[in-house]
């Protein structure tokens, strides 16, 4: 079975995003809400909400990444070095934002 969202995902200094337009944090949050809604759950307004408690799993995270990629019209680069802890809604939004702004 697919595991629940791991606590650690790749982080660091992704390359090649200098010219990419970005999806605003608020819009990423909206998309995150859409992912949750499609799974019959809802996204709390609180960014400190724990991902395990709200049932946001690795498949959901992956879907969110694809939604962002579709809106960007380009792939996100997750192959950068380093690790970052992803435990809350805010962590997810920070991480996606970081990938786009690096």
């Amino acid at each position, binding site marked *: 079975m*697919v595991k629940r969202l791991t606590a650690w995902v790749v982080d660091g200094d992704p390359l090649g995003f200098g010219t990419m337009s970005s999806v605003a944090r608020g819009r990423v949050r909206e998309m995150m809400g859409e992912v949750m809604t*499609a799974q019959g759950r809802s996204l709390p307004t609180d960014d400190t909400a724990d991902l395990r408690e709200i049932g946001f799993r*690795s498949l959901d995270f992956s879907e969110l990444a694809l939604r962002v990629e*579709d809106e960007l019209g380009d792939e996100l680069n997750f192959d950068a070095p380093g690790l970052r802890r992803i435990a809350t809604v805010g962590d997810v939004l920070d991480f996606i934002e970081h990938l786009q702004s690096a």
Partner: protein
Amino acid sequence: MTAAVTSRRRTTALIGDDNTVVVAGKRLTWRTLHKLPQLPSPAAVLVDSGADALAALRHHAVHGTELLVATESRVDMRMREELGESGFAIVLPNGEVTPAKLKRVEESGRAWLLTSGSTGRPKRIGHTLESLTTVTGDQPPRTWLLPYSPGTYAWWQVVTLSLTQADQGLVVIEPSELEEWPAIAAEHGVTAASGTPTFWRQAIYRDADALAAVPLEQITLGGEPVDQAILDQLREIFPKARISWIYASSEVGASIVVHDGKAGFPKSWLDREPDPERPMLTVQGDELVIRSPHHGAGLVGAVHTGDRIEYDGDRVLITGRLDTDEINVGGSKVSAGVVRNVLMGHPGVSWARVFARKAPLVGRMVAAEVVPNRSLGPITDADLVQWCSTRLPDYGVPRRIKFLDEIPQKETLKSDV
């Protein structure tokens, strides 16, 4: 009732020479088709019309020449070079002939087919009129639709039936007529038609009423995985017709024929006692393996088909190509064909393609393209996700679904599902 294809004594005499052949609206017979003068042998005859392809086939049948026939668009310059170097003169639709670069003795009676190329570049498979004539015995009088691209295995199946059996007329559908074939078929009294599931799906999608006006008694599907939804839709439109699906390929010939209206074939057909007249079906790993009396030249013995199977109760479903069917989602494996069958089972879906999409964390995710059934109102990706969620494991639910305006279709009548 279901039955495996058996190889009885075959006749390749031109018993059907006086059968009706309708091309470009003209009612002819095989005998009165135009002739192709001085056709070289071996020849690769590249055609841009169904009439020329039939004329080339009859020439081959009468004179025993070595022939490869294909549409001009399927044979690119590189392949023409390769054919020339293999001893084939290239005959273009305008009659222009490029002599073979290699002079060799013809293989009398050899018919060459090009594979559909679903596993890469098309390959050349050697047959004879006899090995291609798999429908034998007394057939009820029928008028067959011929929508297939000339030179494909499915095309050979229909044309050899018409040429070697009595009362088997043909109505040729040119590529430019594909969208309106039901009207042409109704006009000429077509009673039997063979097509890919994509072909049938498009006909239902475009105009189910026009399709229902065709007096079909025999409906055949093949060339792609056949799902239960399309069988059920056709049954609803044609409650009295015999609906069959065929597993056939240039390599192993027609090896499985199922008439019971169900997807897949009975598990009991696997590993039966050897019988030289009947294809032997086995499964190795997830792959369908066939020893067939209808095989192409040099393909004696077990042929690994590259097609993936999955068991469903007492049935064996053929879900798609091994190299593309299995999607690994974070270590959990799911068949694209199975997901597609679930999507196609939704009443609001006319067509679907399921594929893997690269994704973070899980490596690959299931994604889909869907053509909605316009007559049943709008559907959303959330509707489909919910539908799939109750029928598939989490990792098998397509998370990204793109809606298309029409069903894509290639020259082979397939749609890359």
